[in-house]
C-alpha cells in the first residue's frame, strides 16, 4: 500500500473513530486533540485490521511515543516493510 493510500485510510479512521477531522500531518495529536494512550491502543487495533496482521507486543510498545499522523504513517510503513522482508 502506498503512503498516500495509508494516509487516506488513517484520516478516515480518525474521522470515524476519534471524531478528529483533517488533523495536520505534523500536529501533536495529544496536545491538540487530547488523543491519549487509550486512543492509541484503539488505533493499534485498527492498524492491525488495515495491515491484515497482528502486531507483536514489542511493536505495540514502540508505538506508544507516536504523536503525529506522519509518525503513524512512518510506523505503518516500517511494520509493512519488516513483514514483507520476513516473507
Amino acid at each position, binding site marked *: 500500500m502506498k503512503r498516500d493510500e495509508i494516509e487516506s485510510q488513517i484520516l478516515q479512521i480518525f474521522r470515524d473513530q476519534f*471524531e478528529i477531522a483533517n488533523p495536520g500531518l505534523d500536529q501533536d495529536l495529544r496536545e491538540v486533540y487530547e488523543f*491519549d494512550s487509550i486512543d492509541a491502543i*484503539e488505533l493499534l*487495533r485498527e492498524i*492491525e485490521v488495515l495491515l491484515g496482521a*497482528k502486531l507483536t507486543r514489542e511493536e505495540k510498545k514502540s508505538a506508544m511515543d507516536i504523536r503525529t499522523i506522519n509518525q503513524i504513517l512512518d510506523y505503518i510503513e516500517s511494520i509493512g516493510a519488516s513483514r514483507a522482508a520476513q516473507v
Partner: protein
Amino acid sequence: MKRRVVITGCSAITPIGHGKKEIVRHLVDGISGVKKLRADDLLSEYIHSGVYGTVSYPIEYAFRRRDRKTMGPVSYYACQVAKEAIEESGLDDAYIRSGRLGVAFGSTHGSPTVQRQIYKSFFSESKSEFSSIGAVDYLKSMVHTTAVNITKMFGITGRVLSSSTACTTSSQSIGFGYEMIKFGIQDAMLCGGADEYDTTTVAVFDSLMACSTAFNDAPHLTPRPFDEQRDGLVVGEGAGALLLEEYESAKKRKANILAEVIGFSCNNNGGDLILPNLDGITETIRLGLKDADVTPDSVDFVSAHATATKMGDIIEAQAIGKVYGTSPVVASLKSYMGHTMGSCGAIETIMTLYMMESGFIAPTLNLNKIDERCKMIHLAVELLESDIRLAAIQNFAFGGVNTCLVLKKFDQ
C-alpha cells in the same frame, strides 16, 4: 459530630420524562411511561413479559469526546443527571474539585450493552484474529463506571462509593452520602444511580415468574401495585442524581435548599435472598424513623417500594401498617414507570421532592381495586393536594437489603 444534610440539586431521566416539568406533568395527569419491550434479536423472543419502562424520548448530550470515550449507555444517563444536579446546586468549579465533594453512585451491573459486545467477541463465529475487546470496554462496562465517569467529567476528587445492590443501589447511595456528610467525612456528596435499557434484567425476573405478563398488549395498564389484578413487576430504565450538602455550608453560600435528609436506615433480612421479609422491612422502617428522630404519625407520605409482585406488596403493606397504621398516605411511584432498578431509589426520592415542592401526592396508577390484604394502609387512589412535611422512601432489593430514607421539607 452530627451535621444537618440538605439537598441543593437534583435531576432525573425517567420513563415519564426528563426533568421536573415533564415528570410532574405525567404524575399529575396519570400518564404511564411503560411501553412494549423492544425486539433485541437476543432474549426478547424468549421472555414472557412484553413490557418495559422505557426512556423513549431523545436526550441531547453535550459531552466532550474525551469524556464520552469511557462511557457506556448507563454512564450517559448518569453523567447527564449529575451535570444537571450540579448545575442546580450552584456549586462552583473550585469547590467541586476541592476534595470536599465526593460521589456515591451506582448501577445494577454497569453497562450490560457493552458487556454483551465483549461476550460477542468471545463467541464470535467469524474467528477473526483482530476481533477483540476494546481498550475502553471495561471502563464502559464495569460496576462503578457511572461513579468514576462522573468524577472524570467534573474533576471530582473526594471519596467514591459505588453501591451495586440491585434495587437499593441508589437509595444506598443517598443514604451513605448522607452519612458521609452527617459524620463530617465529606462536605458534599453527589448521590444517585442509573440503569440502561437491558433485556437480561427482564429475563432474570421473568425466569423467577416475577414479571408482569398479562398486559403485554396494553403496557400502560401495568404494573399495578397493591391492585387485585397485579401480576408482577415491569423492568425499567433511568437515572437520578441528588446533590447533598452540609447545611451550614449551603446556607453560607445562599444555596436554594430543596429539602433536608433527616434519616436513613439500611439492614438485611439475614436469610432468604429473594422472598420479602416482614420482620426485616418492619425493622428498616423503624430504624429509619429512629435515625430521623420522628414519630410514625408525623410522616405525611410514604413512597413504597411496591413493585406489584404478589407477595412483595402484601408484606410491605403489612410492615407499613405495623409501624404507621393508617396515618401517612402511601403510593407506589413505580406504577408510572416500572421498576427502574438501580436508579429507583434516587428517582423515587426526586419525585417525592417534586411532590413536596408542588403540594400534591400522585396516586398509585392502575390501582382500581385494592387487594383486600393491602387494605390496612392509606393508599392514595386519586390525586391529592397535600403539604408533605415529612416523607419516607422505602426500597428493598434481592439479597435481602432494605433501605428507608426520611426527608423533611426545608425550614430554617
